């Protein structure tokens, strides 16, 4: 587990250094690759949700998404959860809160200082979908933005 994450990290750092320029360039064409929370799923239902055609089309590409940062699972984790609305409501006062359906997991390119969860942020990175379990935390996610950076907007 240790080896996997450190390998992963160094690969990410390399990529981070290499794509500095292309990433800036890609921001210019951000308009058609921006994704809104309302565009994530094509179908909702009791038996599951279905990703939208837009998500399927953008998978593997650089995208941008606006939302709010949910409180990080743990301080040292290099990922956070992007939510449509500021996260606060836990109706199960004394138990672990469930994550809402309208979330995207964001894996950061580099560790950054977390911002107020009330602040709207824009995340840019590579879109990925499909079930994936974080080897460090066991957190299962279905939709991720990898090699991500974010900015307050």
């Amino acid at each position, binding site marked *: 587990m240790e080896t996997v994450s450190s390998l992963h990290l160094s690969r990410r750092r390399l990529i981070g250094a290499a794509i500095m320029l292309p990433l800036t360039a890609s921001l210019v064409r951000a308009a058609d690759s921006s994704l809104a929370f309302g565009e994530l*799923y094509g179908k*909702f*239902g*009791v*038996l*599951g*949700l*279905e*990703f939208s055609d837009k998500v399927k089309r953008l998978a593997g590409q650089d995208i941008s998404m606006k939302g709010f940062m949910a*409180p990080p699972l743990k301080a040292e984790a290099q990922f956070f959860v992007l939510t449509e*609305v*500021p*996260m*606060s*409501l*836990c*109706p*199960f*006062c*004394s*138990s*672990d809160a*469930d*994550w*809402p*359906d309208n979330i995207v997991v964001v894996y950061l390119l580099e560790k950054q200082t*977390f*911002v*107020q*969860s*009330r602040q709207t942020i824009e995340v840019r990175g590579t879109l990925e979908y*499909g*079930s994936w*379990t974080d080897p460090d935390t*066991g957190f*299962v996610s*279905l*939709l991720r933005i990898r090699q991500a950076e974010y900015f307050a907007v």
Partner: protein
Amino acid sequence: MRTLLAAFAATTILAGAAQATTVYPLDRATILAGSPFDFKVELNKQVKPEDVKITVNGQDYKTVLGGEAQFVELEKGKDDKALGSAILLRGLKISAPGDYKIEVAAGDETKSVTWNVYETAAQPKAKNIIFLLGDGLSVAHRTAARIMSKGMTEGKANGRLNMDDLDRMAFIGTSATNAVATDSANTMSAYMTGHKTAVNAIGVYADRTPASLDDPRVETFAEAVRRLTKKAIGIVATAEVEDATPAAVVSHTRNRGDKADIVGMLLDVKPEVLLGGGSAYFLGKEVPGSKRKDNQDYIKLFQDAGYKLATDKNELAANASAEGNLLGLFHTGNMDVTLDREFLKKGTVDKFPNQPGLVAMTKVALDRLSKNPDGFYLMVEGSSIDKMSHPLDWDRAVIETIEFDQAIGVARDFQKAHPDTLIVVTGDHTHGVSIIGTVDDEKPGTEMREKVGTYAEAGFPNYKDENGDGYPDKIDVSRRLFLSANNGPDHYETFRPKLDGPFVPAVQNEKKEYVANEQYKDVPGAVFVQGNLPKSSESGVHAVDDVVLQSAGPGAEGFHGYLEQSDVYRVLADAFALGAKQTN
């Protein structure tokens, strides 16, 4: 020197008292005769098996409890911390009623507890029990529901709620084994097992080891019904079916958050009818919307076990009179509340537009369960009274109370045709909420606070129910009931119903403190209300106040005066004669 020694001795005694040897079931436990339970002793020190002596009423425990306990040389806590030895005997039964004194001696540790094993009436009093639980149901909720639903003229209510005519009553103490306060898991567990337990625990005593699924178990009411009768079992909730209250009908875990495991426990008991939200925990992890961490497809497992599946209002209606078991899942999470589902179309109604309500679910459950010639046990939870009270969204909570009362009406109609049915209506805990008057938009000025009327200035609210559906035609009338919380996080009081969706009073900042949600700051007349809970609290909390229980039907006379939650079980067990000798 003597003083020093005495002080030392006193400290030692206190330190010892802080982590005394623990015996489960706890002292003063009440146990249904013949009902299986796990016996566990937690010692503070590591001892040898030959050092442990356990007697029951002076005899060797093996003779009385009918088995030899497993000796655990050393239990470990978090980070492998040594906790001491333990003795564990699972699934034992005591058939003869009476007091049982358990004495444990191991090295210099001793502990003594007494259990009361009780039998029940020899013959059942009721064929069916409908247990209706309003989660968080407080006195203010029902008063407001009566006024908003029925109206009031010159100080007299213009009508009565269905719950108003349940004739037998008791006040219920709701405290947990580890706290004066409670949660839904602990109280429903006590109602459904006859044993009090700790906050977040269901169907178990909360032991000291970190694993949540191995704690000492006690039998649930549904399991006892399965063990002794051919009655059908039904569970109906507007929450996720694996949420604390519905889960406590059948499940065993120290952690109510073990929802993926609870789905498996629901399948183990196989209630004939299971209706509510929470399909996310039935879907394998690769299905978008799933909240499982494995790929178990519980929809298929239930279908393989003979269940018909309904996923919306129409499919539920189509299944109303069918044979066989029914699984109805109408939302991936908690179902939307009545105000959003039926009137405002807010919340997640756009994603799940065809959800049935509690009334329709209760009707279908009764239609199907009543086909069983041996009778049934049905649990119906008005789940969201609580879920809307936490964020101080009183209008939604009261509308949920009206819906809950309409489900009670369905049960009462059933009871009229089937008088051998016991109906129990209660809450699991209260909220810190009261009605203190009205808010009148016609009062002069722009400050909403000045529009609050108390005493004679309150007058009466002007809700109308012209279509006679039992709900006010609109909730944002010009003179509204004013409900106020006695606890909460920092928030903005707007003095108005939240028409855009459920209230989110506070949001978390980067210091993990909950601060007032500024989304409501600019609502005209909104005032900042400083919280009185720790800043880690995101919402209002449960109150420790007693809950009112009301009941009608055969066996209801068992409810009177003051009862602990765990005593409620005894009345239910008595109504079905679950502790009678001839049924063992």
